[in-house]
């Protein structure tokens, strides 16, 4: 048995019993969805269809329809890719790293955070795919025997490391998520009355019966997967940062990138978790499970990672001067004071300054403030990637090649479209999947439930 310090706030509020937890999660699945859900689903479906149309147009016409030019060959595509991968870092961090640290507050949020991770990584993977131009040749990224002689992919290239990192991260996150879902699908299977749903959840639950030996294996698998996923989370964004750091473009050629990117990823991921969970908590009546304490814990993670990002920004600036390399100095001077100064200012304000407001307990424990600041962080982190990518390449070595990036409506359509697809998938998840990890929550009810702590 674990002992709980008196100052710990309960993680499950209200007089909840095991049956109540099941009821609170299963009844929204069984009952008719609220009107708001249909409205949101329709809106996101329209945006998703618009995005898919843009992607098809792009594939059909070629990537010339983007605003890229000879100087700026990478812009919104890779910005969006890194942004989505970053967002996809919170889920596995919550479920794996916090599992290893035995943080019980993760249990109310891990399921939806992992779902968010998986959908975000799918959105991220879209961008390198469509940037290939000839997406039907995407299998070229894998080392498969081919008819072109011994033509292998270049294993020295960080872009190939990325292929392996992203596909490993996606598939491992997916199985981690699904293995946790199996027992909860079984709960739904045994609870719902409609025979169609019973059959559907029966298939999804893989015939889970909850035997003692099954649970013994379940816990071992969860622990080992968490142990494997923890270094994986850190490796993935490190490798994403290598895409830039191993090049010799001033502004990208920086050894600080791996820790800086990983911390930025966790920062943006938690902000997205806050954005989604604060809405879900209210609409799905999960106030007893996703409490102000959970929100506060996540905000603390946001302050820590946001401050690491801030230190990284300042270190970069300092080193660019201290290195004495004039190209390097210029890259950073230009970033802060050149034509893209406004993007740099948004980045600095939204990522470094405003998250510091969470030092105030009132703000950190306020849902409205958290929601606003989380959205600000999401925007700021998108600008961070834009600043790093575009400002570093828009001033070439030859001033005659200097250029600016202007997005076309296809750039915009694809980006907004991925947000639509992401929201669409998340809404389906929230409606048909157990949004809380039932089996994990039940196992902490006696140690962390308000009802039991009081006694």
């Amino acid at each position: 048995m674990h002992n709980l310090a008196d100052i710990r706030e309960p993680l499950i509020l209200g007089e909840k019993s095991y049956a109540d937890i099941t009821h609170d999660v299963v009844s929204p699945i069984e009952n008719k969805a609220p009107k708001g859900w249909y409205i949101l689903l329709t809106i996101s479906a329209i945006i998703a269809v618009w995005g898919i149309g843009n992607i098809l147009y792009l594939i059909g016409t070629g990537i010339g329809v983007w605003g890229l030019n000879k100087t700026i060959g990478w812009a919104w595509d890779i910005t969006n890719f890194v942004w989505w991968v970053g967002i996809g870092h919170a889920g596995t961090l919550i479920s794996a790293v916090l599992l290893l640290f035995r943080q019980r507050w993760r249990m109310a949020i891990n399921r939806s955070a992992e779902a968010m991770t998986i959908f975000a990584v799918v959105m991220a993977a879209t961008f390198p795919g469509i940037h290939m131009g000839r997406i039907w040749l995407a299998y070229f990224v894998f080392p498969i025997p081919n008819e072109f002689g011994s033509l292998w992919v270049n294993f020295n290239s960080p872009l190939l490391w990325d292929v392996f990192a992203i596909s490993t991260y996606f598939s491992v996150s997916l199985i981690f998520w699904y293995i946790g879902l199996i027992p909860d699908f079984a709960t739904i299977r045994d609870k719902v009355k409609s025979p169609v749903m019973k059959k559907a959840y029966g298939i999804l639950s893989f015939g889970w019966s909850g035997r003692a030996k099954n649970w013994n294996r379940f816990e071992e698998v969860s622990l080992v997967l968490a142990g494997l996923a923890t270094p994986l989370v850190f490796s993935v964004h490190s490798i994403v940062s290598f895409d830039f750091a191993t090049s010799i473009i001033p502004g990208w050629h920086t050894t600080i990138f791996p820790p800086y990117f990983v911390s930025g990823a966790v920062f943006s991921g938690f902000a997205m978790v806050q954005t989604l969970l604060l809405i879900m908590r209210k609409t799905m009546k999960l106030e007893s499970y996703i409490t102000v304490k959970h929100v506060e814990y996540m905000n603390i993670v946001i302050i820590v990672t946001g401050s690491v990002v801030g230190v990284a920004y300042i270190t970069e600036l300092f080193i660019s001067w201290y290195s004495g390399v004039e190209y390097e100095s210029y890259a950073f001077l230009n970033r802060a004071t050149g034509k893209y100064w406004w993007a740099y200012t948004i980045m600095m304000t939204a990522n470094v300054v405003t998250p510091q407001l969470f030092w105030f307990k009132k703000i950190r424990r306020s849902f409205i403030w958290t929601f606003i600041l989380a959205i600000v962080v999401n925007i700021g982190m998108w600008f961070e990637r834009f600043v790093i990518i575009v400002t570093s390449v828009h001033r070439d070595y030859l001033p005659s090649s200097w250029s600016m990036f202007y997005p076309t409506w296809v750039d915009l359509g694809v980006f907004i479209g991925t947000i639509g697809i992401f929201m669409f998938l998340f809404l389906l998840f929230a409606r048909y999947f157990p949004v809380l990890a039932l089996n994990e929550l039940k196992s902490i009810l006696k140690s962390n439930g308000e009802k039991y702590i009081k006694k």
Partner: protein
Amino acid sequence: MADKVFYALYNDDDILKDAATDLVAKGIRVNDVFSPFPIHGIDPIIGVKQTRLAIVAFIFGLTGLILALVGMRYFMIVDWPMNIGGKPNKTLMQNVLAFIPITFEFTVLLAAHGMSLTYLIRNKTLPGMPATNPDPRTTDDHFSMKIVLSENSQFSSEEVENMLNGSGLVELNQKDI
């Protein structure tokens, strides 16, 4: 041979754990326990051995590590050595630093998938498998203990029934098989 299975239903994990401890002390063999979440500490009481899945993960991980290194050595050193800026590429050892990220990823990939597949197969939880829990409530808020009469041949059916009835259960189901 006529056999009998007892399913004792409890509404609390701690009561079930106490009951199991008590019954095992009296010489009863508990066949299985069905619960909606892992009951910590039940395994040694009813004699469930610690799983060896972690070893499976290690073996799969080792396989991934070796496969990745052997593969990259073949692609990049043996089959088509590339001269990139005159960087050393004659032996695996000279080039191994660039191979570490993929070696790591592939190790994790194989360890995670290998262990998870083994887990699903060993648990007999695969798409389309039928559920075998005795009562639908055991995935909600009830806990069931299964006792098979033939495994407890030193006791009569009535003795087992009496012992179970005195253990704080909420419902006792018997099934002849």
